[in-house]
């Protein structure tokens, strides 16, 4: 309860300023920049990089767009962005807009010669599954980025894993190409329901039983095909250590292809955002894999925000052919999808088919959501599940820096239902 009160208080305190708060009358009267008579048409970045900004920074940007240029407000935004990106410097440049009397603001980020960032990108709680947390340190030197992450994840997969993720990335061609290599090591544990399901009958679609640890080596390359469309290709070499030490290692080696589209439209009081992606994991014997499978996932997320109201619609679908290991199988009933349900109750081994949709309505910091979907195995009939919830949030989820979420979700079904508490923060 105390946690809830703290989060609600934080939500109120962290609310973005209204336009009147952002630009004071005194600032308007004393703006000495001759360009203050022009209207800001858009605000963007000069380079091709994808920057991750908090909802409050995005809101600050949105409030400036469509208004007359105000130097002090723009300088505040620049300092806000600099602080969030932990950049050495951020400057702005005004260029003529599309219409006479309008200007475009371009932000130029100077990351500096080298820096180290430490963050906690994920920290959350879900009733029945416990805590999930990740801590991350990133060292940047020129176009090179080295990231080290320690995590404990009870949420996103059937397995409950704790481990490390290390990755190296090099940005080339004005950030249009990114070459990367990732190494992950996890120790895995399982919910009793999963172990019981594995012991009772091994489904033919499950590629491996319980494994005690997992190693992943993953070189990849990303290309900006035509902004905002990016394509990533890589190879994942996964080694699974079975629970019994005498059993041989199993491998799940797959080619990974991802196509992503991310676009943001913003006008005076309205923001629209579309994020869509298709991902293909193809584990083939050409790569020497013990488990051969293909995994297709397709996701779309559309956001419409006008003044204090927002509507978000998400769709997720997936299909697996072949024998995929547990970490690749689809899950619903966690802190982001089909909230309110227990994923081990829905399917303790995950499924190889997935269909899911979600609608969220928000007013100010209040959020109301409705989720519906099903995860099942090929050959079985899908059973649609629904849930609803209410809560407070500063963003749409936990993906944005500084965002928080506190919600109560209910599975919609006949008979006794127990609400699930979801809490999370990203800082």
């Amino acid at each position, binding site marked *: 309860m105390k946690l809830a009160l703290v989060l609600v208080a934080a939500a109120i305190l962290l609310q973005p300023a209204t336009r009147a708060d952002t630009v004071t009358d005194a600032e308007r009267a*004393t703006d*000495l*920049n*001759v*360009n203050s008579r022009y209207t800001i048409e858009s605000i963007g970045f000069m380079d091709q990089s994808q920057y991750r900004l908090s909802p409050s920074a995005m809101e600050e940007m949105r409030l400036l767009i469509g208004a007359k240029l105000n*130097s*002090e407000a723009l300088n505040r935004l620049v300092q806000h962005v600099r602080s969030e990106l932990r950049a050495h410097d951020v400057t*702005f440049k005004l*260029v003529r807009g599309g219409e006479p009397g309008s200007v475009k603001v371009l932000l130029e980020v100077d990351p500096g010669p080298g820096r180290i960032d430490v963050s906690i990108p994920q920290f959350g709680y879900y009733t029945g599954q416990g805590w999930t947390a990740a801590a991350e340190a990133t060292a940047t030197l020129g176009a090179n980025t080295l990231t080290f992450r320690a995590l404990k994840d009870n949420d996103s997969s059937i397995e409950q894993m704790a481990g490390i993720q290390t990755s190296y990335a090099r940005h080339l061609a004005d950030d249009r190409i990114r070459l990367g290599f990732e190494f992950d090591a996890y120790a895995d544990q399982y919910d009793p329901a999963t172990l019981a399901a594995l012991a009772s009958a091994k489904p033919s679609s499950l590629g491996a039983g319980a494994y005690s640890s997992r190693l992943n080596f993953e070189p990849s390359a990303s290309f900006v095909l035509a902004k905002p469309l990016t394509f990533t290709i890589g190879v994942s070499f996964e080694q699974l250590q079975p629970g019994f030490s005498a059993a041989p290692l199993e491998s799940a080696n797959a080619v990974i292809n991802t196509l992503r589209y991310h676009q943001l439209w913003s006008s005076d009081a309205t923001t629209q955002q579309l994020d869509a992606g298709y991902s293909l994991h193809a584990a083939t014997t050409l790569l020497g894999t013990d488990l051969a499978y293909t995994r297709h996932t397709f996701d779309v997320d559309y956001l419409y925000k006008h003044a204090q109201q927002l509507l978000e619609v998400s769709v997720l679908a997936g299909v697996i052919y072949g024998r995929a290991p547990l970490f690749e199988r689809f899950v619903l009933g966690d802190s982001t999808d089909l909230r309110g349900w227990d994923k081990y109750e829905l399917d303790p081994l995950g499924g190889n088919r997935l269909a899911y949709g979600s609608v969220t309505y928000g007013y100010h910091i209040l959020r109301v959501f409705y989720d519906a979907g099903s995860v099942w195995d090929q050959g079985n009939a899908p059973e649609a599940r629904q849930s609803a919830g209410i809560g407070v949030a500063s963003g749409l989820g936990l993906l944005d820096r500084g965002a928080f979420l506190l919600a109560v979700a209910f599975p919609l079904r006949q008979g006794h239902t127990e609400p699930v508490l979801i809490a999370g923060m990203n800082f």
Partner: protein
Amino acid sequence: MIVWCQRARQPALRYFIVALTAFDLLGLGISSAELAVRSSGDELQIAAPRLHFLTGKSLQRLHDGAAVPFDFQLTVAAGSRNNVVARALERFVVSYDVWEEKFSVVRLRDLHKSGSHLSASAAEAWCLDNIFASSSNLPPGQQLRARLEIRAAEQKEPAIMPQDTGISLTALIEVFSRPSRPQQEHWALESAPFRLADLKP
């Protein structure tokens, strides 16, 4: 051999002097441009047609659409340079219209005093035309020397200082009481010695 060396050294010396002068002008911002002084009633006015401070990083910031404040200090010394008998301090905020490609200047002490639709050299001249030192207390027969210092305010510095009706003299005195930072653009130039009685109106 000696002749060759001397011939070789003469242009080298010239290049060295030119380079030193360029360093002096660009790096340290000390200009040898002439500072002309004239009298107008109870005020001393200045002109420096060869001085250009809308250059370099400041000019780039202006072309990027930012307003750049410039701090001016005009001092008049009697006898030795340290014996300052008159001082004027002003902050001018310059900005560049990205549509009209013209400069605007506002004198911060008096926000109603401004110039617009100016070329770069006209904007520079406008600033010089709007800084005066009082001549009422100057010794008429003593040899005087005027000195003008200009500093471009740094990027993080707000255009308007806390006393929002303009700018406090205390704040500007503080600005000029400390040496300029290595990255800060600054200029300085001095007049030839003169006597108040000899000045033309």
